[in-house]
C-alpha cells in the first residue's frame, strides 16, 4: 500500500493505493494524523486506487472524521469511492458521515 499526501491551499489530498486492512490501516491513520496534528482539518481522501478496505480502514476514516469535524473546523470527504468499498460503508451505516465525490477535482473544489 502506498500513501501520497499533497497539501493544497484550502485542503489536503491523500491518495491511497492498494489494500487497507488491519496491517496497513495504522499507516493510513499515521498519514492522516500528520495532517490533523499540523492543524489542517479539511481533507480529501482519494480511494480510486484502493481495491480493498476492511473494518480497520473504515475505523480510520471515522476516527479522522471525528477529529476533523470537532469544533466545525473541517471535514473529511471521499473521492472516487469504488463500488465495493461504498457497499462496505453502506453496510456499516457510515455513508451519511461522508460527502462523496465522483472525482478528486470535484472533491477539492468542495472546500
Amino acid at each position, binding site marked *: 500500500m502506498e500513501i501520497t499526501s499533497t497539501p493544497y491551499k484550502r485542503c489536503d489530498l491523500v491518495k491511497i493505493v492498494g*489494500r487497507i*486492512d*488491519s*496491517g*496497513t490501516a495504522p499507516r493510513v491513520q499515521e498519514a492522516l494524523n500528520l495532517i490533523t496534528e499540523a492543524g489542517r482539518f479539511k481533507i480529501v481522501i482519494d480511494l480510486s486506487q484502493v481495491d*480493498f478496505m*476492511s*473494518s*480497520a480502514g*473504515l*475505523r480510520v476514516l*471515522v*476516527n479522522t*472524521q*471525528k477529529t476533523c*469535524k470537532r469544533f466545525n473546523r473541517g471535514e473529511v470527504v471521499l473521492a472516487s469511492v469504488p*463500488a*465495493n468499498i461504498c*457497499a*462496505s460503508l453502506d*453496510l*456499516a*451505516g457510515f455513508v451519511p*458521515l461522508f460527502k462523496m465525490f465522483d472525482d478528486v477535482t470535484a472533491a477539492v473544489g468542495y472546500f
Partner: protein
Amino acid sequence: MSGAGFPRTQTFEGNYASLADIAAFVRQAASEVGFGDFAMYMVETAVDEACSNIIEHAYGGEDIGKIQITCQDAPTELKIIIQDWGRSFNPQAIPDPDQQADLEDLPGHGLGLFFIRKWMDEVRFSFSGDGNVLTLVKRKE
C-alpha cells in the same frame, strides 16, 4: 494455487502481513467457483475480518500461532473453514454495532463480526480442545 482442485488447504502465519496472501487464496477459490466481483469482495471481507480477529483476539498479537484455511466447492455453495489454536470466545457476546449512534459515540470494534454475519449465508463457530473453527458459507447465485 490455480488448478489445485477442491478442497484445498493452506496454512498462514498469524500476522497482518499474511492478510493479503489469505485474500489472494480465497479470491482465487471464489473466482474458480464462478463468483462475480462483488460476491468475491464479500468473501474476501468476511475472511479478512475473521483472520484479523484471530490475530488480535484469539492469539492476542502477531506471530503467536497459525491460521489454516480450507476452501470446499459444492454444487450450490463455497465453504471456507478457518481454524486457529488461540483463545476461544463467545460470538453471542459480541453485539452488532449501534448504527444510530452519533459520530462521537460510534463504537470502534464489533464491526468485523457484523460484516461476517451480514455478508455470509451461514456462519458457524465451534470451539474444542483442538482449536477454534469458523465455517463460512457463501451460496452461489
